[in-house]
């Protein structure tokens, strides 16, 4: 006799909630030691609603179908010399930044969700985290495969995971996840699932995937589409987490608010890298960073925080500062990388005259006044045969680890300086947001691994810059770094296209 098939409701019950068990000879509190120390109060885990009601067997089936389609397209890209279809060799540098700066974060997310899922007493949340953990592992793999084709033809892709742990500007994304993963499980979820994935992720993925489409990169577009259905599930998890925490106990509200403030700030600082990708690194531009911020944060985020107001949650602290920064950060960031372009694992360049005009049009109140003169100066120096690279190492923020390059928003020609003294030791920050994060948990951030300080302590090889780049970062000095003009990347491109 054939076995009876389970109906959907029973299957869901058996394959999710029924996977929990009672602890007969162990103390349940000892089994979940991380559940209480952050001060979060969970009164009833059964109130957790699984956003997608997905069971593992259907999860594997969907994911396997997506993988088949994805890898068929990767093969097609490789067979059709997809690298020659991109808009311009400058575009490949956005991919280098993505592979070194973002893909390792997918791996960090995989590990973070695996750990966090284990720490929850509620089985619904545990399974949601488990699926997301597997998704994140899949994302890093598909991203690496998407970009492996470009690795054969462009410099700078070769040692991305090694670089992630060592290169100065990659300490910015790395420290973001190190901070989240070394927090308690509820803070991790608010940091990654809610603040980053729900509130800010559109600002990362939409520009990257639309940017890829606009610039002829079919491999990246395809993994973006493939990942998108997972991302939708992750975002829903993020929203469920927040609502669950806020509904469980009123004492959770101030704790969650502090996390939202912290992770919103850290997230926007991290997205500085994306802002310069949109405004400067995409040869065919999708939209300006300012426009993206207005659509995806001010409009979408504004509506979200209106919804959350009934729980007593207000918009993130310093959202007003960030609203002003949308006019400035991309220009400040690309100038940073341009001026340290001898120490980056991707190429930099002066925007073309046409691009400078596009920036003037998109930033009518700020670009010509504050930023065009920098590029005019760089053009003058380049024309004189003196391409400008900053000598000496920058001062870093002790929280976000970005050089102190942000200006006071009410005085855009003056760098912002903030500092505090803790246990007789002075610490410096780029902003009030980063200052406040340190002051709330100084024992965490006194341990910050600041690349500049580590180089100067002699912990990164050296002593010269070239030795640090070559031996410690494993960059191919002279090929991976410096200006795109005259680079091997540019020369190869010209030979493919048959131009001198």
């Amino acid at each position, binding site marked *: 006799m054939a076995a009876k098939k389970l109906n959907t409701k029973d299957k869901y019950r058996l394959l999710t909630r029924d996977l929990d068990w009672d602890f007969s000879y162990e103390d349940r509190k000892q089994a979940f030691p991380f559940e209480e120390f952050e001060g979060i109060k969970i009164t009833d885990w059964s109130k957790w609603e699984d956003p997608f009601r997905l069971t593992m067997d259907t999860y594997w089936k969907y994911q396997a179908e997506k993988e088949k389609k994805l890898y068929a397209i990767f093969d097609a890209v490789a067979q059709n010399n997809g690298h020659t279809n991109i808009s311009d060799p400058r575009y490949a540098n956005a991919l280098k930044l993505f592979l070194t700066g973002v893909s390792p974060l997918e791996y960090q997310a995989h590990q973070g969700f695996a750990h966090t899922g284990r720490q929850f007493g509620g089985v619904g949340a545990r399974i949601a985290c488990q699926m997301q953990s597997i998704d994140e592992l899949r994302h890093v793999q598909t991203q690496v495969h998407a970009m492996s084709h470009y690795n054969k033809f462009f410099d700078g892709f070769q040692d991305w995971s090694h670089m992630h742990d060592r290169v100065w500007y990659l300490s910015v994304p790395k420290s973001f996840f190190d901070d989240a993963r070394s927090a308690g499980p509820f803070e991790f979820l608010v940091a990654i699932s809610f603040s980053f994935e729900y509130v800010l992720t559109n600002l990362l993925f939409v520009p990257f995937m639309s940017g890829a489409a606009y610039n002829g990169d079919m491999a990246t577009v395809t993994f973006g589409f493939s990942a998108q259905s997972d991302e939708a599930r992750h975002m829903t998890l993020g929203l469920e987490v927040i609502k669950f925490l806020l509904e469980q106990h009123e004492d959770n509200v101030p704790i969650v608010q502090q996390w939202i403030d912290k992770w919103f700030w850290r997230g926007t600082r991290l997205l500085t890298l994306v802002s310069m990708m949109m405004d400067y690194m995409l040869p065919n531009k999708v939209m300006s960073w300012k426009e993206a911020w207005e659509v995806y944060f001010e409009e979408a985020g504004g509506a979200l925080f209106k919804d959350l107001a009934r729980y007593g949650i207000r918009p993130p602290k310093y959202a007003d500062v960030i609203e002003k920064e949308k006019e400035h950060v991309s220009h400040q960031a690309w100038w940073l990388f341009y001026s340290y372009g001898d120490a980056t694992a991707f190429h930099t360049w002066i925007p073309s005259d046409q691009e400078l005009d596009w920036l003037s049009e998109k930033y009518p109140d700020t670009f010509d006044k504050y930023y065009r003169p920098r590029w005019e100066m760089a053009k003058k120096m380049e024309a004189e045969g003196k391409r400008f690279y900053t*000598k000496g190492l920058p001062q870093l923020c002790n929280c976000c680890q970005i050089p102190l390059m942000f200006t006071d928003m009410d005085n855009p020609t003056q760098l912002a300086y903030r500092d505090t003294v803790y246990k007789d030791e002075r610490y410096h920050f780029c902003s009030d947001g980063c200052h406040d994060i340190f002051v709330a948990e100084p024992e965490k951030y006194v341990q910050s691994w600041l690349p500049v300080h580590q180089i100067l302590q002699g912990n990164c090889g050296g002593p010269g810059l070239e030795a640090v780049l070559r031996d410690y970062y494993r960059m191919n000095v002279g090929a991976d770094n410096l200006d795109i003009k005259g680079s091997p990347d540019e020369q190869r491109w010209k030979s493919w296209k048959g131009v001198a």
Partner: protein
Amino acid sequence: MSFKTLKPGYSGEVKDRLENFNGNQLVYVGWDHHLMFCAPFTLPVPPQMTFGELRDQVMAAVFSPHPEWSQINWDSATWLLNGKAFVPLLDASLQAQGVDHKSLLRFQTPELAGFMSAAV
């Protein structure tokens, strides 16, 4: 409590304390309204170094690519040390005049407005 942990009383290791810099201390230096340099510099120097050596050798090495560096009138330049007005003594050591580890020095050159008078 400064940090919520599973076991109370946790204390972090201070990574950037003076002893870790092999006899040097760090001094951060920024030139206000001159954004050709995207950020202030981190300069490792011996605490016994004189202010004159810091200004004319160490700072010159990193700031001199700016076309206005050679035009600075040091008599009219002003300084801030950790946010407070400061009058440096060129012949005295950094240590003797309170420029200690991880101090921030900022200088202002009121006659110089940067490239195209745009604070570059």
